[in-house]
């Protein structure tokens, strides 16, 4: 997973490093983010901002295992069978891939603007990213329509079953990311447990992960045909 350094200065956000397990005196839970004071919702001590990123990282590990299970099923099912029939992938997938790739760049631009406390520009780039995400999902739906138009359905062949399954599974996860983008872009950041900088960092990590995952799945679907 690509690790993006934090780009903002207001409350210091810790970096994600899997091996970095704070220990010893002055360990986690103390000092860091202490300036936030008791959070809302009855916490006696604020949750360290880093724990949100850690939680997200763990979530991504689980998502990766889920997709790896599907990918290994793809490889095994294709290897074991003599009924696998290739079909040409809709060319619009190339466009979709480019859109998603660009959205990874725009989300970084947005975070940089937030780092300079230019909230208006942050909102603008954040909206662009959200729009590109929606465009990607729409493009995937168009690809489905094109395949259906050619008579390639979910149950037509194992190759098409896996195509629909993998694109749908990825699409659902990406939609989750889009919802997060919308919430982060438009909520008020008064009195929240998680700071805006942590939230945008998490969203960006998730977004890059979904981008990389899609490129991997696209290559798999292309080469595995």
């Amino acid at each position: 997973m690509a690790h993006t350094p934090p780009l903002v200065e207001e409350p210091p956000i810790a970096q994600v490093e899997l091996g970095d397990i704070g220990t010893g005196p002055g360990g986690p839970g103390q000092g860091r983010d202490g300036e936030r004071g008791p959070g809302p919702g009855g916490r006696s001590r604020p949750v360290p901002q880093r724990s949100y990123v850690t939680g997200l990282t763990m979530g991504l590990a689980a998502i990766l295992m889920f997709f790896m299970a599907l990918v290994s099923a793809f490889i095994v099912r294709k290897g074991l069978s003599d009924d696998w029939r290739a079909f040409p992938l809709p060319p619009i997938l190339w466009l979709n891939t480019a859109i998603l790739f660009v959205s990874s760049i725009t989300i970084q631009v947005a975070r940089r603007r937030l780092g300079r406390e230019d909230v208006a520009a942050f909102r603008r780039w954040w909206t662009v990213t959200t729009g590109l995400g929606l465009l990607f999902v729409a493009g995937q739906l168009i690809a489905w329509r094109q395949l259906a138009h050619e008579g390639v359905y979910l149950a037509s062949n194992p190759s098409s079953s896996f195509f629909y399954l993998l694109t749908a599974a990825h699409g659902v996860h990406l939609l989750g990311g889009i919802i997060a983008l919308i919430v982060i872009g438009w909520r008020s950041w008064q009195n929240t447990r998680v700071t805006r900088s942590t939230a945008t960092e998490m969203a960006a990590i998730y977004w890059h992960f979904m981008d990389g995952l899609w490129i991997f799945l696209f290559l798999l679907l292309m080469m595995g045909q």
Partner: protein
Amino acid sequence: MSAHAHPVSHHAAAPQGFIRRYIFSTDHKVIGVQYWLLALAAVSVGMVLSWLFRVHLAWPHAILPGFGGVVKPEQYLELVTMHGTLMIFFVLTVAPQSGFGNYFLPIQIGADDMAFPTLNMMSFWVTFVAFFVLISAFFVPGGAPINGWTSYPPLSAVGAISGPGQGTGETLWVISIAMFCLASLLTALNFIATTIEMRTQGMSLMRMPLTVWAWFVTAIVGLLAFGVLLAACILLLLDRTAGTSFFIPAGLVFNDTQPALNHSGGSPLLWEHLFWFFGHPEVYIAILPSMGVVSTVLSTFSRKPVFGYKAMAYALCAIAFLGFTVWGHHMFVSGMSPYSAIAFSFLTLSIGVPSAIKTFNWLGTLWGGKIQFTSAMLFAIGFVSLFVTGGLSGLFLAQPSVDLPLHDTYFVIAHFHLVMGVAAVFGIFAGTYYWFPKMFGRCMNEKLGKIHFWFTFIGAYMIFMPMHWMGIMGALRRYAQPGGLAFLQHMSPIEHFITIAALITGAAQLLFYWNFFWSLRHGQKAGDNPWHATTLEWAVSSPPPHGNFEQVPHVYRGPYEYSVPGYSEDYIPQHLAPEQVAKAGA
């Protein structure tokens, strides 16, 4: 007892109102109790199911209530399928990890709650709904599924033509398990983030109680395993409902009927690989938390530190890691290459090493201790006994040449019930007797607890030891009427013996129910630290307040400082500063 000179924590008031406090609560302690009660409900149903099929096995012509006459083979299969599913998922996964883990992990690391309390609440309610989705399978046309808890295709994938219960019932099974996977993933994520990020000052990794180590490692195992089962469930659901052929090969015939002809080319083996890639780690999800509990209980009631603390922590990690490499030993008879089988066999046998380290260290902890035979201690010792007994038969089954004749026999039933079923239940009992005073402020009755232990301990051996012999003689699991086979007919006295033992052992559990619910109101008042134990949960009142700690605790030492020479007390709590600990003769 309280630490000194630490920042006073500011508690917002605990939520008021019954629903926010006890139903949709985000307090980890309430959620822990909710999980525990859910497991109690599940184990009650699962146990009643086992009584029914045991009675049927002993007296095949008995007319049981609710079956409309003699139990039919498919009804027998419904009973064993639902028994297995309930026990594995909703008891052995829920109680020791989600139940005790939720309640005590945050307190033992000095945190005021889990890292993500709302997520925690959602995990519980998804699990809760999953439980009722599963139970509802009994009440749909065709009844509950009949393909066993492993849900092997093609039987599980082709729908109602493969038998009653394989229609709507099996669909509900798949949906329930998929929901359970999702909830377990969220719980695992929460446990890991909490352990990494929420430990209080001074609580280094090597000062964590072994219970915390066990919950932490188990959460990692769950995080990596449940996603795979979730993926497998989705594939199965698509095969069942959308006409795909992931698992369904061509040319199947069930009861003279062919499934829809568009299925072809699928691989049932694919499910087996995906399922057991989850399924074997699941065994460790069930047993590792109990190992943590047993380590703590043995240490507390031996008044000795855990022997080889670091080795215990590393052994947990080693078992968890190896657990991901051995799934093929469930599939020796599937036609796998003998070379693969040897690799899986070698890896499986090597799990004996960290398991033996743990057993050795448990015995080392007991050795020379001032042992107090409390109910919790008896169940912890019982756990070690059952784990060793069940583990030994694992060494037989790990070898492909021995496994071939023993596969799918009662020998396997005996093995896994002892080593991870009953052993994990003993861990749950040990944890319940040990922590009940902390959770509810009152002690359970020790005399009843000890009677409960002896009935359960002897009963477990009486039920499962004869099954080894039955299995070696060729008795097959999932046969509804073993008496129909000539070579098994002479076993009917054994069947009677096992069934009577199961009924008596089951009846003895009523003592536990009585003890539990009676003690909630009438048990002896516990005080903060009735066992003179050292870990952080005993530093707060019983039950702990909302937010757990009045002051942020600081940890000064390891978790098992018992009988340290030179001090007046035989235990030194983790949160006491060195100058607060009374020296002997001072």
